């Protein structure tokens, strides 16, 4: 009953309008190569400063869901993934386009994205409250070891090199120690600068790392003109295509949700795993790579399956499921809401509204995807020199408007240059942002635990849930080695 009230709240014209704008904006951002979903959410975050929490979150979710779907448009029609999450879609998608069946592929990807996203949203609604109840029993040691688990995952999955992923993660941890000490309240690493007393603001940092650094990369390397020669008129999928793609989409939706729930594993991984599983379970795996329906439906349902899945640990534990969720933690905090189990007791209305908007946001990109594809194709072919400068200005506003402080703009610019160098040094950026959120949580809960145990580390090993997370952390650290061994023994790639 309460949930239906939330659904009505979300369907109020003022919120729905904001969501429609978000969804369309998200699809466009996702479809533009070089603009990612997390960048879109960061870039448009400033628009939500003045909104209430419900409207703001509804808009951000619409952007993020839309962007993950939008990436498939370019992956199929141009053969370049619009977002990293649609790289797996490209494998089959461009084969369809080469056969002149771009429209058919878009139809399958649109519906599969919606199926995956909706399964994920439903799972969020079912799982999150239960997990929040469980999380209420968590004490400092459990939170500390949970963060440890999240941090190990960041290191083991991100980027091309394990070492560089770890460096990025630890740099994020180091930056997170600037500011007020969580226990004593004294300032740390302010280096005499009053603006650093309360630490670096996460939002300008994220804007610098995700958005402006890309502006600089674009300036240096130039932006290509997207050219779509294929005529796409209608993308409504046929009944036989639907019948073939639905079972795969449903399964991949669950896989995506599960991967989303794991802290720090994002939509790109969800897409590749879904594709792999679909190939392994398929009756005709040899068709994969030649433009087959299942191979297209799986990654699309998988990456959208991740979207709401990543919200599960974010809302219930305050631990982001992926980089976009880390930005959403920032957004919630801006509205005075602290993600975690207490959110479900103190601000249950907002939580229900977020649930309802997750469902609606998925529906919106389905509608706009199916009906407005011709418009999106036109927008994607915009002159490449127009968008980047406007993004630059929006980034400046985003970091300034947070607390009307020019220092934040400066900090954002410095960080963006660092982010720019990282692109060429092949150092992944997402671990930095995830560590920024996890770092303070890890430290304060570790110190609180040690206060409880009078300095003994045994407290982390004697409590079952805490021990469980430690074991998970160890497994995830050993995973790269384990995987190599398993691959050798079984002769397959995992």
């Amino acid at each position, binding site marked *: 009953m309460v949930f239906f009230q939330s659904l009505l709240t979300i369907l109020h014209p003022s919120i729905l309008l904001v969501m429609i704008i978000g969804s369309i904006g998200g699809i466009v951002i996702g479809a533009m190569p070089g603009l990612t979903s997390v960048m879109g959410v960061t870039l448009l975050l*400033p628009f939500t400063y003045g909104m209430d929490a419900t409207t703001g979150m509804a808009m951000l979710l619409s952007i993020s869901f839309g962007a993950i779907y939008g990436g498939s448009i370019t992956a199929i029609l141009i053969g370049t993934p619009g977002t990293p999450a649609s790289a797996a879609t490209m494998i089959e998608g461009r084969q369809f386009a080469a056969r002149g069946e771009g429209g058919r592929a878009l139809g399958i990807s649109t519906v599969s994205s919606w199926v995956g996203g909706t399964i994920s949203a439903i799972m969020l609604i079912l799982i999150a409250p239960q997990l929040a109840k469980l999380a209420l029993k968590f004490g400092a040691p459990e939170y500390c070891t949970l963060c440890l688990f999240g941090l190990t995952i960041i290191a083991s999955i991100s980027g091309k090199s394990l070492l560089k992923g770890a460096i990025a993660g630890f740099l994020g941890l*180091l930056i997170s120690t600037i500011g007020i000490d969580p226990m004593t309240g004294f300032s740390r690493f302010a280096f005499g600068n009053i603006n650093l007393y309360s630490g670096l603001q996460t939002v300008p940092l994220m804007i610098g790392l995700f958005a402006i650094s890309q*502006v600089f990369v674009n300036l240096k390397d*130039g932006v290509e003109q997207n050219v779509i020669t294929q005529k796409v008129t209608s993308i409504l999928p046929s009944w036989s295509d639907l019948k073939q793609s639905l079972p795969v989409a449903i399964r991949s939706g669950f896989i995506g949700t599960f991967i989303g729930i794991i802290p720090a594993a994002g939509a790109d991984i969800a897409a590749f795993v879904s594709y792999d599983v679909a190939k392994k379970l398929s009756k005709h795996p040899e068709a994969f790579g030649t433009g087959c329906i299942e191979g297209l439906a799986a990654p699309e349902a998988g990456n959208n399956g991740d979207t709401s899945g990543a919200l599960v640990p974010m809302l219930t534990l305050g631990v982001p499921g992926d980089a976009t969720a880390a930005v959403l933690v920032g957004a919630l905090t801006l509205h005075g809401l602290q993600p975690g189990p207490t959110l479900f007791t103190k601000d249950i209305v907002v939580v229900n509204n977020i649930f309802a908007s997750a469902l609606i946001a998925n529906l919106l990109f389905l509608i706009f995807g199916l009906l407005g594809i011709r418009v999106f194709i036109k927008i994607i072919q915009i002159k490449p020199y127009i968008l980047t400068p*406007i993004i630059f200005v929006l980034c400046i506003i985003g970091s300034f408007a947070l607390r009307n402080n020019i220092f934040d703009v400066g900090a954002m610019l410095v960080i963006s240059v660092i982010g720019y160098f990282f692109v060429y040094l092949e150092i992944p950026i997402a671990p930095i942002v995830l560590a920024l959120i996890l770092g303070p949580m890890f430290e304060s809960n570790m110190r609180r635990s040690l*206060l409880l145990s009078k300095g003994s580390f045994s407290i982390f090993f004697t409590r079952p849930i805490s021990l469980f997370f430690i074991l998970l952390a160890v497994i995830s650290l050993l995973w790269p080695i384990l995987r190599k061994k398993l691959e050798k023994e079984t002769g397959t790639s995992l």
Partner: protein
Amino acid sequence: MKLKHLNLIFSGVLIVLAGIFFFYADTFKMLPGQADIGPKAFPRFVSVVILILAILLIITELKKNDQTKVQLFNLKFLIGLVTAVLYFLLFKTVGFVLCSMASIFIMEVLLLNEPFKKAWPLVTAVAILAPIVIQLIFGVALKVPLPAGLLSFLF
């Protein structure tokens, strides 16, 4: 420049950074009778790990024979960077709208993929209109106090 050399320079920067954070942590105040590990421990632990990772990066880079070359800078990037820095310095005095018009124009020209002769009407129109629209959305509708600067008689 070779990626290998860049990685080595980066490791050096990391070591210096870790050193600064490690030793600066000595200045932190402790509460009298504080029972936990204190505000120093975590940053110091992180600095030590960064130091170790930096050394590991040096070792792996020296071992492998990587000839990949990376171009870090070019003129367009540097002009863009100078534009961004000037934007930051002049933001308050010149104001949001004028700063944005200038920087959008410069960046558009940097990114042009067709002759300026052909593109200038669109380039100019975007440079003039986009900041005004953004000012109307943020400054007027969302009430963000964007600096008016030289145009303070207008906003």
